[in-house]
């Protein structure tokens, strides 16, 4: 059960991260440093 929840949380986090590097500005004022592995998507 715990592993399912961790997997679900991981999926949500990856989804949010991909929106974060999309052209739409997900952030109101602050944007965290983009991880190297996602920089090519910017």
């Amino acid at each position, binding site marked *: 059960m715990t592993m399912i929840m961790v997997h679900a949380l991981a999926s949500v986090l990856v989804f949010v991260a991909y929106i974060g590097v999309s052209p739409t500005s*997900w952030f*109101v004022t602050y944007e965290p440093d983009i991880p190297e592995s996602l920089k090519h998507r910017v």
Partner: protein
Amino acid sequence: MIKAIARRVAGTMGAQLQVDRDKVEIFAYGLEIILGALLQLTILLLLSLFMDTFITTMICLIAFASLRYFGGGVHLNTYSGCLIVGVSLLLGLGKLATIDVSLEALTVISVLALLMGTYTIFRWAPAGTEKKQIKDETTRLRQRKKALLVITVWSIITVVLIKQKLNANAFAAVLGAFGSFILITPLGYKAFKAFDNILNIIWKGVRRCLER
């Protein structure tokens, strides 16, 4: 602090899921976005309730965030700076919206905001940052179109609010949009850069005092 928490949680998740370091960094990035936004929103909600400006502040936030979503704009380098400026700006605009303005004045301000917004979107949107810039012209054009659609919806809502004599709410929508437009312009970039420098100076001073 948010970064540290995000990294720690992402590290634990990575160990449980047995994924590589790249994936852990993506988890940390996603978590930092969620935690940062949640904290900022919670503080804004509580302070606006305390200041009795909840509705106007929320309308400001919706107008501000929806335009920023497609129009982009300046960002601060540190989370603490962002928290202070973002919350103060929206609370200030929310409070300002409670000032009683005449229908004529509100109409003039709304039209000026609409003209300024349209020009700003055409001229500078989507406004990027050092961390994220959109260079592809097709994507830029698509973002501009979306931002203009948001301005159209925002204009209709503002007119409806004015017609319904909900002047404070209409004023809040205008101020929220105005705040977003300013942060797309070079003036907004200069102001935020100056504020970032001031925060850096204060932070260095504090660190020196603590080290002594």
